[in-house]
């Protein structure tokens, strides 16, 4: 069977059959494998159940409101903490809520009335008091404050309220916004949930006691499974059957399915799409949260990271089910859990891929994604089919005029600022400049060609590590080193971009996310590649002139040693950004830019116009990877090192949010995106001028993302452009009353 006949055989209708087949193979594997492997596969069910539950929540969200909720794992984690707080401490914790009285109090304090105090919003509401406990080894062991049923009941109510709040405060206002705006809002939610938990409980793990009975269940061939995991599996199966029946047999389910395709469909069945979305948000939040509660004990502890990051395999499972079939979602979730556990077990076999003599550490995490990418590529089509709705709406991509003088003026002004401002601000400017480079790469790929990428930071990391481990290690001098890094990033970017030729829209977002996870696990976490000693980057120098941020410098006027960071590094960044800005502007103004936008707006029509759709996408992936690679090299020079944690799936996700909020379809948007990145100009305004405690930086970043996504679903740059347009139109309208003659580019894309 060749590839194309395999593709034509692999139709959507056959997915359940394929998944059933895979499960069948797993079951046969269980029967044939030795008892250790059987045990590993069976044990994987427990973890798989939680993955499946989060994936079900994602699918439910997508059906109900068209949102791919990147925060589903965070919601599960949050649910676990709500329960923990109630059960153990008898306290319901509240997220930080703005207190309208605080400014009054602040003014009073400024006026000298230091003792003036107004009521504060409580941090915890105490509902029950823990009984006196005993101390053992410096640790206070107390009896739980609240019975299980009460804590569960209150948790479910809290989760339901949260679901409503998500709907009304965030996603209802965004219901007509582009898909990406919703993705950004869910990324914001992800950050907020995690930040609230760290604020209230710190990030250290908390021990949780089991809710479900934990007696091991003995099975044939010496295999056993703790009963709580078995119950969890049964519950998730029951939930799946319930959801399946609900969506198949009830008017409500029918209406939701109808609404997910066409809002009118739901209205015909007598439901408002808004009501449906709200109910589905409550259901998905309660679902994810409850499984967080039930599953935390299976991991024996709860912390803000572990369950949150299960979003990665859960998204994979939901994607495999095309965000539509609950049964396939369940099967995929359980399958990923079992597969991961099995890979973990066989990682010591002689045939297992090795690095430095021991099994490649990240393979267990990466392999499910490799499988998913392969499945999607086989399933995808090089051109969308007639009537498919796989394209995403994106903001208008303006053709800039007069960008050369503007770029020059801004560039020179920034260079001037670099020498004038204090070191803190200099650092902020440099951080923003590096951020701009990454955002520019997303402008080309996502803004111009419409390919959502959640792997740009991973590509930047590839370049950074190449710079450190290859270029520096072999004494390759400055301008060649970073270029080499960027070229390697291009190669990896093209490899990872191949699936993009056959996968579109949100599916592509998840595929690139999977690619980032794979790169993170197989490259950055691979000791053979990234090394264990840290990856330091030598500061750049040209003709003996060293201009790394930590190199000493002499003030150009008046002499004397200047404060670090070295502003010449900032100058270097400005020059790089200017070159890239002009190049990206030129892309938009030239043939390739028109071809890119043609592909973005209509792949079929583009092909009919003789545009090579695949070629254009490949070129865009390459150009974007190159720009991201330059960004990664700059970042390496900036810190003097590259670290695995800085690059990878989650940072890529957050960077897409920055780029989108700045304005993903224009170069000016990338400038704004750079300003709002972590450690950039906006953050520095927050900390230096508004004196906001670092404690709240992450929380505010998350809230800011959500608010900005709601206020400017097309990005800040787009909103500013709208404002400018408006002023121009005001002027124009004095002479010309007719309004409709003037095109309204941005509105048209909504």
């Amino acid at each position: 069977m060749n590839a194309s006949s395999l593709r034509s055989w692999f139709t959507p209708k056959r997915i359940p059959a394929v998944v059933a087949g895979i499960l069948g193979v797993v079951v046969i594997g269980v029967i044939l494998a030795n008892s250790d492997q059987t045990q590993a596969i069976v044990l994987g069910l427990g973890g798989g159940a939680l993955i499946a539950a989060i994936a079900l929540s994602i699918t439910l969200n997508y059906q109900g409101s068209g949102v791919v909720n990147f925060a589903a794992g965070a919601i599960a984690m949050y649910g676990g903490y709500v329960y923990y707080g109630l059960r153990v401490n008898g306290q319901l914790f509240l997220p930080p809520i703005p207190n309208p009285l605080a400014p009054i109090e602040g003014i009073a304090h400024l006026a000298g009335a230091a003792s003036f105090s107004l009521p504060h919003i409580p941090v915890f509401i105490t509902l029950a008091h823990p009984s006196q406990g005993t101390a053992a080894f410096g640790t206070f062991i107390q009896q739980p404050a609240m019975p299980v049923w009460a804590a569960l009941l209150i948790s479910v109510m809290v989760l339901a309220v949260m679901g409503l709040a998500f709907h009304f405060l965030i996603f209802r206002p965004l219901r007509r916004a582009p898909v990406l705006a919703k993705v950004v809002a869910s990324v914001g939610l992800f950050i907020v949930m995690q930040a609230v938990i760290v604020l209230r409980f710190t990030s250290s793990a908390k021990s949780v006691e089991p809710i479900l009975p934990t007696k091991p269940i003995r099975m044939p061939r010496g295999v056993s499974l703790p009963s709580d995991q078995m119950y969890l599996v049964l519950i998730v199966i029951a939930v799946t059957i319930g959801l399946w029946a609900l969506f198949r047999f009830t008017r409500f389910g029918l209406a939701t399915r109808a609404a997910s395709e066409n809002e009118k469909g739901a209205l015909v069945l007598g439901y408002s799409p808004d009501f449906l979305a709200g109910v589905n948000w409550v259901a998905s939040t309660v679902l994810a949260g409850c499984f967080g509660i039930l599953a935390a004990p299976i991991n024996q502890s709860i912390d803000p990271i572990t369950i949150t990051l299960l979003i990665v395999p859960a998204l994979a499972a939901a994607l495999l089910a095309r965000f539509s079939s609950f049964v396939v979602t369940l099967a995929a979730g359980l399958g990923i859990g079992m597969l991961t556990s099995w890979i973990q077990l066989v990682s010591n076999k002689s045939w297992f891929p090795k690095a430095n003599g021991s099994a490649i550490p990240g393979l267990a995490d990466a392999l499910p994604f490799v499988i998913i990418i392969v499945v999607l590529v086989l399933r995808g089509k090089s051109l969308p089919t007639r009537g498919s709705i796989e394209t995403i709406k994106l903001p208008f991509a303006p053709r800039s005029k007069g960008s050369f003088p503007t770029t020059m003026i801004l560039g020179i002004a920034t260079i001037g600022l670099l020498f004038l401002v204090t070191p803190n601000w200099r650092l902020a400017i440099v951080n923003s400049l590096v951020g701009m480079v990454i955002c520019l790469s997303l402008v080309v790929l996502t803004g111009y060609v419409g390919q959502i990428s959640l792997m740009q930071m991973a590509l930047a990391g590839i370049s950074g590590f190449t710079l450190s481990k290859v270029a520096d290690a072999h004494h390759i001098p400055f301008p060649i080193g970073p270029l080499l890094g960027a070229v390697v990033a291009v190669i990896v970017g093209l490899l990872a971009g191949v699936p993009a030729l056959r996968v579109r829209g949100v599916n592509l977002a998840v595929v690139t996310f999977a690619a980032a996870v794979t790169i993170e696990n197989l490259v950055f976490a691979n000791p053979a590649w990234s090394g264990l000693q840290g990856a330091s980057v030598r500061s750049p120098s040209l003709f003996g002139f060293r201009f790394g941020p930590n190199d000493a410098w002499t003030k150009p006027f008046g002499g004397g040693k200047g404060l670090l960071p070295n502003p010449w590094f900032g100058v270097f960044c400005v020059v790089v950004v200017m070159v890239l800005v002009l190049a990206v502007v030129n892309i938009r103004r030239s043939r390739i830019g028109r071809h890119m936008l043609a592909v973005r707006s209509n792949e079929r029509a583009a092909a009919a116009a003789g545009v090579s759709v695949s070629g254009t996408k490949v070129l865009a992936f390459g150009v974007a990877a190159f720009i991201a690679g330059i960004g990664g090299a700059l970042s390496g020079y900036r810190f003097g090192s590259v670290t695995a944690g800085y690059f990878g799936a989650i940072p890529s996700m957050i960077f897409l949010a920055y780029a989108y909020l700045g304005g993903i379809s224009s170069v000016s948007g990338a400038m704004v995106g750079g300003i709002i990145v972590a450690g950039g100009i906006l953050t520095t305004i927050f900390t230096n001028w508004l004196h906001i405690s670092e404690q709240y930086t992450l929380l505010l970043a998350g809230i800011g993302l959500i608010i900005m996504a709601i206020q400017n679903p097309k990005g800040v740059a787009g909103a500013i452009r709208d404002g400018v347009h408006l002023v121009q139109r005001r002027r124009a309208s004095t002479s010309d009353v007719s309004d409709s003659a003037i095109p309204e580019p941005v509105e048209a894309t909504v």
Partner: protein
Amino acid sequence: MAMLSISGLSVSFGGKRAVDDFNLEVGAGSLVGLIGPNGAGKTTTIDAITGFVPSQGAVDFDGTDISGLSSTMRARAGLGRTWQSSELFDDLTVMENLQVASERVDVRGFLRDLFRPRNDDVSELTKILDSLDLAGSADALPTDLSHGQRKLVGVARALAAQPKVLCMDEPAAGLDTVESQALGRRIRSLVDGGLSVLLIDHDMGLVLTICDYLYVLDFGQLIAEGTPAQIRADSKVITAYLGERHSDDHGDEHGVDTAVPAAPGGTPAVGGTTDG
């Protein structure tokens, strides 16, 4: 000599044959019509010819078999098409829409454009726009145009690629009678200028008036072919159009077009009775 010739063309969707063993020829400089009730497989035929759906059978274009080529390669070879619903690039201006079709990208040109974008010559494209009365809309966005204008831009974009054969999928759909007739005259003059055209349309009046030769499809099968005069007289065609057996898969266009005027020469129109 045939510019475009298909033989044994078949397309299946999930086991159902949408087009079955279809043969068709478009001679150089001729205007060939492809008609049939809704769901007859007309658009699918164009999709197959231009490479948008996988098909079986041979597609010979200008003397070579292009059935192995991608849709992009077919377009570049000179096989143009328009779309039922225009399918314009809404993010680009009208002129940019045309430029996309007329310009090719190569790596060297791309690298040069990065540093010094060319000022591409658009005088040829301006001529095309002029010829379609679109000169004033060159800098407008497609979304600001009327439906009729969008249709014309679709045609202009296809022409911008300087095709040898142009497949037009219902260019007159949604146009009023006057617009439709004007479009017909333009198409005819293009053909007279040497272009070969395969035209699908529901406007029987238009098709019967301007085409040199016609093929009639029903349920994916060829039921008749011949000159407009022969088709008018064909009983199978009349039956196919009389019976309302076909589901309406085109949304806003109902059935076969209502306005089939008396053809020149006084022969009674064929399709005029179908809508009742």
